[in-house]
């Protein structure tokens, strides 16, 4: 197990390095390069060249990449000229906001999806099961922004219950104080996540209910409830644990589209906004953070799976 872990960690580091290099390469594809992006379309060729030379943009790509990595290892993620902030400070500001949104959404999704999945598994092939499955299917097929728009249309414009924009300013404390404005974004994300989670819980619980240990427990006199909670759930939750690990990147990346629809200044919203104006230092910085989160997330998911399920053996 330790050997497997060490190999996985080393592989993960390699993957992050490669991913960062690919991202770096992509942003260099723009004609004119970062100099053009910063100086704007009216800069002359002369100015572009001077700026490039002064900032090292005319050096070979591997050298530029090396400098960027070196800076990162010293804690400097670059500087955003458009926003007049260091990328590090920007991420430190946006990341907590995204995390607040995502943690609340995933928590709500779990609280709803687990009982829902259990209900579906116990009452499989009844009308209730079909209804929930159809609804999940429908939600699955809807793009996130469509769910968001429909919610806004019905609950904000139509009924006037909630605000159509998420909390804009302030730190996490102030955001949480504006609960009313968080309802629709959280609802959007939670609905989509519930669709996936409940299907997993449903199939996982169904699979476990047919196992022999359930029959044994019932034969030993355990009640339905005890069997469900103490025995079945512990096993059925294993895939959910891996799912949670795999949702770590979304904690960091946020739901870019949902944040855009609700104008919520999180990581995803920032990424899209800065990508539109070609603000490469920010784009690279966020992409790097997201890559690391993705790799860590899948590593945690694998570890969780191997730890929770003693049947799994890794060579």
């Amino acid at each position, binding site marked *: 197990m330790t050997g497997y872990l060490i190999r996985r960690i080393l592989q993960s580091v390699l993957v992050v390095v490669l*991913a960062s290099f690919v991202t770096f390469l992509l942003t260099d594809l723009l004609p004119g390069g970062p100099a053009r992006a910063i100086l704007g379309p009216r800069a002359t060729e002369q100015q572009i060249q001077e700026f490039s030379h002064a900032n090292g943009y005319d050096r070979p790509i591997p050298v530029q990449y090396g400098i960027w990595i070196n800076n990162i290892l010293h804690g400097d993620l670059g500087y955003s000229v458009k926003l007049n902030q260091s990328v590090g400070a920007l991420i430190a500001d946006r990341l907590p906001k995204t995390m607040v949104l995502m943690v609340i959404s995933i928590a709500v999704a779990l609280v709803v999806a687990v009982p829902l999945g259990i209900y579906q598994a116990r009452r499989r092939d009844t009308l209730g099961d079909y209804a929930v499955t159809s609804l999940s299917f429908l939600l699955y097929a809807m793009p996130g922004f469509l769910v968001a728009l*429909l919610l806004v*249309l019905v609950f904000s414009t139509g009924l006037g219950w909630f605000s159509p924009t998420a909390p804009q300013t302030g730190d996490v404390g102030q955001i949480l104080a504006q609960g009313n404005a968080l309802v629709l974004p959280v609802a959007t994300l939670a609905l989509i996540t519930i669709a996936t989670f409940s299907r997993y819980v449903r199939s996982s619980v169904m699979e476990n209910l047919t196992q022999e240990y359930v029959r044994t427990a019932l034969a030993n006199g355990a009640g339905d409830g005890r069997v469900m909670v103490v025995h079945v759930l512990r096993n059925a939750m294993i895939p959910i644990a891996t799912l949670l690990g795999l949702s770590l990147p979304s904690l960091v990346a946020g739901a870019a589209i949902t944040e855009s629809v609700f104008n919520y200044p999180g990581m995803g919203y920032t990424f899209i906004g800065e990508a539109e104006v070609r603000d490469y230092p920010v784009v690279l910085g966020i992409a790097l953070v997201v890559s690391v989160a993705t790799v860590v997330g899948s590593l945690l998911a694998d570890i969780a799976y191997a730890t929770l399920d003693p049947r799994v053996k890794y060579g």
Partner: protein
Amino acid sequence: MPIPDPAPGEPLAQQDEPARPMWRLVPQILLRNKLAVAGLGVVVFFVLFCFIGPLLYHSNQELANLRTADLPPGSPGFPLGTDDVGYDELGRLMIGGQSALEVGLAAAAIATVFGSLWGAVAGYLGGWVDVIMMRIVDTLLATPGLFLVLLLASIITPTEGLLILVIAFSSWLGPARLVRGETLSLRTRDYVQAVRMMGGGNRRTILRHILPNAIGVIVVNTTFQIADAVLTLAALSFLGFGIPPPHADWGGMLSKGTDFTANDYWWMIVWPGLCIVLIVVAFNFLGDALQDAFEVRLRK
């Protein structure tokens, strides 16, 4: 106990039912699945709606007319309403659907072909070739799909062809992993060993034996790819990275609709949203049914 040779003129003692070829069995099972029929019907409807529709129903999609802007459905001459510059919604849906279907099908086709070849080669050759090829896949998977797509879309000026390539680029990873898995199990089969013993080269084995036998997995994956491609295109257009106006696009229509939610111009959101959902659900039904159809055949 060995089966005795039949006397001349007698039929063989044991005859299996003649194996029905896959391309006849699969459609049979497919058509028995009502959801698949519904899905197929929806797809056919949309193909007709988007490509034949504009020939029969003429609407002005090029000249803005502010006098006919923001009309609700049911207004005379505009059965589904108009958008904020006066374009007829129904006509716009038809034309918008063209890019959705074209991009969806093309991107899925390219992603599937490229990804399947990649996966088959990696799985078949094994060794360090496999390791390198799959690490590349993992690297690309390390960036969440949307980010990758946005990154690419922000660099290029979008045309339909480039969008197809961008979407295909972020979706070939799925088929690659899938086909590699299939290949790993297929290459241990007897007929593959037989081909190699007869001197078949790698290329021949992969193209003529491995891939055709993985076709079930590939086809199922393709239908889901089409659905995903439609969703990705809608997301890109929604965020403004799609084909610029006056080109019509369901995602772009939704983007416009966002600006008017406060005015309660619901028709700008509901019609394109409905189209997207119907197409995606239809392809998902088809994919599920195909999965069942191929599995039944394998069970036999």
